[in-house]
């Protein structure tokens, strides 16, 4: 039995409605408890800001495309080099660091849970292997279903239950957590050298539209009672005028779940563009944020762009090809058999560039214009908008109008006429930041009942203590203190152990991977479905029996079993 007592913590815990109370937190064997014995080890928080461990609800840190980003950009490994130190391995890389680099840097910022945004089912093993070497965070993987042949056939036949059954089998087989749709239909069309322009274009051969895919998969997701909703990367990413497509996609979604949203729309910054081309490109964050504010069934994340060098990577192959034609630099494209694809290119976002400046504004506007912080979470779609190490700067921008104005003065001079940002006075408070970075993410991912994102007795003892005194720091004026405070925790506690202290990681750690296993009736078990098996054996390059990820690939793990309504 190990016990730990965090004393004099200034706690912000939005899921329990605690906002800045000074209290003690008792921990026994990795869980938060009511009280501990006098023998407990004591950590004195001295009134510092204490929150549940950070949760990144959409990041790309593990898996084949992240690793291909590393292959492609050896120059990236020249930055961020740290030697081996104590229990810390050597690290390198800036936008696509080594797995240890990701894990240590997240831990130093107080993050304890990460959702890998897109895992191709066929390549799940690689993702799980890299999870093993991301030791200081619990991990889970969104699984890609955007171009799944079997699902598109089932949708064409109008059989939602079969869609659900295929999702159930695949998630269990690849140890996935949630359902991700990346440019639904578009990646499959890309395999024919095409794309879909919006949600009403049929996918070649399958003759289903993205709208049908989104609606059917959302319904199937709720039939399976998965913890997380469908996680959607809308069609038409990065195209001027794409906000109408985004609104159209969001308008498809009924409110099907009382506990959480029914749709999680990710990196919406990239989907909130107005104009008819790059010449009249402008922000349409207002209609998007207003639309989201009126619909509790939708949660979005920012996908904030920050200036500097980074690597874009997504399952959205055709979009990356368009980016390649703009930048004319390195490009990689990848096709994943019957499932999806991907593309990667390195980019530099520049202040001098008008389009980049507008993108930077849009992310902030979404966060500031969406009324409830529970509906707009803080991400950069790491590393697409910026590496996650920029989060403290984003927090400071959201908390300080003065900082925003100072930064705005440095971007392209025409930006002011294209975006509403300068007119927005709102400054977020500490509680709202806590919602956007942990509580809201836990609720959106459906993991609050698993003890994530709050500090109630019984919850996992994942705690971040930041060297910030919230009654002494005025975030709107002293934004540099906010940046410094959120960049490096005083203590990061993971499962009841202090794992990071003032920038140093103290233990090797061992994470847990969350995955789901929906229970379906016998007649919906795809591993016994003759038609599914026949097509699988015919079209995949692997045998169906070799496809599931073996338990050996999961070190510690928590299987979430759900009962499907089929």
């Amino acid at each position: 039995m190990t016990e730990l007592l965090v004393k004099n913590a200034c706690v912000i815990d939005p899921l329990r409605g605690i906002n800045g109370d000074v209290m003690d937190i008792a921990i026994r064997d990795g869980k938060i408890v009511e009280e501990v014995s006098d023998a407990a080890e004591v950590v004195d928080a001295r009134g510092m800001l204490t929150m549940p461990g950070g949760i990144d609800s959409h990041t790309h840190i593990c898996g084949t495309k992240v690793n291909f980003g590393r292959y492609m950009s050896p120059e990236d490994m020249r930055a961020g080099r740290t030697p081996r130190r104590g229990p810390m391995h050597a690290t390198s890389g800036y936008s696509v660091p080594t797995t240890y680099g990701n894990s240590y840097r997240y831990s130093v910022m107080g993050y304890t849970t990460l959702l890998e945004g897109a895992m191709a089912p066929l390549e799940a093993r690689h993702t799980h292997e890299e999870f093993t070497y991301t030791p200081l965070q619990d991990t889970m993987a969104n699984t890609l279903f955007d171009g799944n042949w079997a699902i598109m056939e089932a949708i064409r036949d109008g059989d939602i239950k079969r869609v659900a059954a295929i999702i159930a089998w695949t998630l269990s087989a690849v140890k996935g957590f949630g359902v991700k749709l990346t440019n639904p239909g578009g990646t499959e069309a890309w395999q024919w050298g095409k794309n879909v322009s919006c949600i009403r274009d049929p996918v070649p051969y399958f003759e289903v539209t993205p709208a049908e895919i989104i609606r059917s998969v959302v319904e199937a997701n709720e039939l399976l009672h998965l913890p997380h909703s469908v996680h959607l990367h809308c069609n038409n990413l990065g195209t001027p005028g794409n906000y109408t497509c985004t609104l159209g996609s969001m308008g498809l979604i009924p409110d099907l779940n009382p506990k959480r949203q029914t749709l999680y729309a990710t990196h919406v910054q990239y989907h909130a563009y107005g104009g008819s081309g790059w010449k009249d490109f402008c922000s349409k964050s207002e209609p998007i944020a207003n639309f989201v504010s009126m619909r509790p069934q939708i949660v979005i994340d920012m996908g904030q762009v920050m200036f500097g060098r980074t690597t874009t990577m997504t399952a959205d192959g055709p979009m990356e090809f368009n980016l390649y034609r703009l930048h004319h630099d390195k490009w990689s494209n990848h096709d994943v058999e019957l499932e999806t694809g991907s593309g990667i290119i390195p980019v530099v976002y520049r202040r001098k560039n008008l389009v980049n400046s507008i993108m930077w504004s849009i992310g902030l506007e979404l966060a500031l214009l969406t009324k409830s912080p529970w509906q707009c979470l803080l991400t950069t779609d790491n590393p697409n908008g910026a590496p996650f190490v920029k989060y403290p700067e984003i927090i400071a921008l959201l908390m300080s109008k003065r900082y925003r104005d100072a930064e705005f003065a440095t971007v392209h001079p025409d930006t002011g006429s294209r975006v509403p940002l300068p007119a927005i006075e709102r400054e977020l408070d500490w509680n709202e930041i806590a919602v956007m970075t942990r509580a809201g993410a836990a609720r959106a991912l459906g993991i609050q009942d698993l003890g994530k994102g709050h500090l109630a007795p019984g919850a996992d003892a994942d705690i971040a203590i930041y060297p910030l005194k919230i009654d002494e720091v005025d975030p709107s004026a002293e934004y540099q203190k906010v940046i410094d405070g959120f960049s490096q925790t005083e203590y990061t506690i993971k499962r009841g152990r202090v794992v990071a202290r003032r920038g140093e990681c103290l233990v090797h750690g061992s994470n847990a991977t969350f995955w789901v296993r929906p229970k379906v009736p016998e007649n919906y078990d795809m591993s016994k479905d003759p038609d599914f098996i026949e097509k699988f054996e015919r079209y995949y390059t692997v045998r169906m029996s070799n496809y599931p990820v073996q338990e050996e690939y999961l070190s510690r793990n928590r299987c979430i079993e759900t009962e499907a309504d089929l």
Partner: protein
Amino acid sequence: MKVTLAMKPAAKGFIPIEAESIVPKNFLSGTDLLVWRGNRELRLDEVFSVSVEGEADRAEGVEVVLSGETFRLKRVGEYMDGGKITVLGDIGMHCGNFMTAGTIEIHGNADGWLGREMAGGAIVCRGDVADYCASGYRGGRKGMKGGTVEVFGRAGDFLAENLADGTVIVHGDAGDMPGAEMRGGTLIVHGDCSRPAANMKGGSCYVYGTAREMIPTFKKIGPVQHDGRTLIQFAGDLANRGKGNLFVKNYEYLD
């Protein structure tokens, strides 16, 4: 100030010495420097017989003379910003990385990556150079950004790869792919080479000998006079929407 570093013969084997501390500027504050041999850090006088003559108060006044088994030394003159280094024998890899000013003179041959990503100053090599002389590094977009590299012997493959600015002159032959991905600057090869200036975006590449396996995506412009020679001018690389100029004395395409 003249600093003479004579290498003591190695007791055993061939273990390279990482000597990025051998930069003229560092000797202004004495010879108390460290180098790495494998995983061991050694004092300079454990590897060299050190002697110092005269005094200097600026890097420009310092000359470092290296002799002995200098081919074992790596990264000599890295980030050098003034003064002179003279190598009386061969030199190991990564000599003159990132240098911004000063002169390096090598009397023997140089191993790979000589003057990689240099930004200024001059390197003269009396012997041959191995691959990636005056080039960029893995994945980088810009290689050498300024200065001059002159080689009197032959050069290996990927000479001046990613050249962005500055001048590279090779008096002998060059290997495969000289000036690959170059985007500026001037590359002159007095001898023969193969596949020059592949995917070039800008700058000028001169081959006074024969360019074998010419890249087919260059557009032939015609003969021009240059420096008393008649050369054939090409523009390209069209595959890269390039606006570079390639001048060759003779050329042959791959059959």
